């Protein structure tokens, strides 16, 4: 079923749509909704995000948002699998994505853990991607599928990049949703110019004249800016852009 998707243009769309989706997350509960949405888009079995070193938020235990069944989460807690799960042990050790197949299951505890996970419907195979943040914050982002051996190899080759990207976007969103960092806004040079002249009190027509672009062009940029900054009107956008130092205060 994964091979079939190779021939469609779905992949790029799935990634871009997911990035947009994840970047607009403002509350913690939306993280889990977005994980479920990702599962649907990529035909996954499960997904899990675990965050570390985020100050008080992760003091007692890692920040977790998972799509596993309630039973498995309960079992995981009751048996203190936080201390056994080799995926979690890996987070500070490696920067490479970890294929669950490569874990050493000669350790009886680890073997039992994976067997129970399989029985609980976690998924036939999985990868975990370590994330490193700017301030010592870190995360481990896992996805699982029920793909057969050959399909799994193909799936990894095709989508590893998507999940690397999504892992970081989910991580950023968790930080934003918990007020650990401010959302990052980035405007293009042209958008900055348009917004600057608007902040100076110029009309759309005047801004167009100054910048040598069409009135429509100015309006297009304004809409883009409002979308990027998540604002409802131009005044809001100007205020927000100034607050985040995206434009200089007008002279």
């Amino acid at each position, binding site marked *: 079923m994964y091979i079939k998707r190779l021939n469609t243009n779905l992949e790029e769309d799935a990634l871009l749509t997911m990035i947009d989706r994840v970047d607009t997350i403002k509350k913690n509960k939306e993280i889990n909704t977005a994980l479920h949405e990702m599962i649907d888009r990529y035909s996954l079995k499960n997904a899990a995000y675990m965050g570390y070193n985020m100050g008080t938020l992760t003091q007692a235990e890692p920040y977790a948002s998972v799509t596993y069944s309630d039973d498995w989460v309960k079992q995981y807690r009751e048996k203190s699998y936080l201390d056994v799960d080799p995926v979690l042990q*890996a987070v500070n*050790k490696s*920067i*490479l994505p970890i294929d669950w197949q490569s874990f050493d299951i000669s350790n009886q505890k680890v073997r039992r853990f994976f067997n129970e996970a399989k029985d609980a419907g976690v998924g036939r195979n999985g990868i975990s991607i370590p994330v490193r*943040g*700017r301030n010592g914050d870190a995360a481990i982002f896992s996805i699982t599928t029920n793909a057969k051996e050959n399909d799994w190899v193909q799936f990894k080759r095709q989508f590893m990049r998507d999940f690397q990207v999504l892992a970081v976007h989910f991580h950023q969103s968790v930080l934003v949703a918990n007020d650990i960092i401010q959302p990052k806004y980035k405007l293009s040079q042209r958008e900055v110019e348009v917004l600057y002249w608007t902040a100076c009190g110029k009309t759309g027509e005047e801004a167009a004249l100054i910048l040598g672009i069409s009135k429509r062009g100015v309006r297009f940029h304004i809409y883009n800016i409002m979308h990027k900054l998540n604002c409802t009107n131009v005044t809001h956008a100007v205020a927000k852009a100034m607050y985040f130092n995206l434009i200089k205060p007008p002279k």
Partner: protein
Amino acid sequence: MIFLVNGAERDQYSYHINTMHKIRAAVFYDRLQWEVKVENGLEKDKFDDLNPLYLLSMDEITGRIRGSARLLPTTGPNMLRDVFPSLLPNDEIVESAVIWESSRFSMEPGAETPSPGQLVSQVTAELIAGICEVGLIAGLTDVVSVFDARMVRIMRASGSPATIIGKPQRIGAFMTYAGLFEVSEAALENIRKATGLEGSVLEPQSVTRCLAA
């Protein structure tokens, strides 16, 4: 071949890692005279404490370490952001899940001499192909690096030309560049063609070990 070691495994592989630090001291301190810190003959910096991934070029027969490179994600602390931000124009940064940074690319004296009929040495070819192969495993699009003019030529000769980003700058005695290297099956193919390498350079057991951390 390329032997992978996680920074977190430095005690288990202390011989390999120490040889790497010794070679780095010989290259960056003794020969290039960069402002790097050497203690007990070992060149180390703060990025070595952040559990990077090391690519060690190992002699297949003797097991001797002959050169190395170091990889770090650009989403966390890295040299371009924290040491050389001036190489990029105002407030531009390289921070991406699919771009890692390569640094401290080096090899023992003599190991840079090309084999007969080749443009670059075996160690150079292995390290460059190894970086590309690891990038493919991790799903990267590019590897970013800070380097000097000598490296620009070496990369070109290895079939992996750099796309220079930002403004080259004189740092100390050297013109210093920031550049991107493509990671793709096609890029790997070009490296293999240019260097005569056949098949993977990665030592398979070290790959399995690092993938399971």
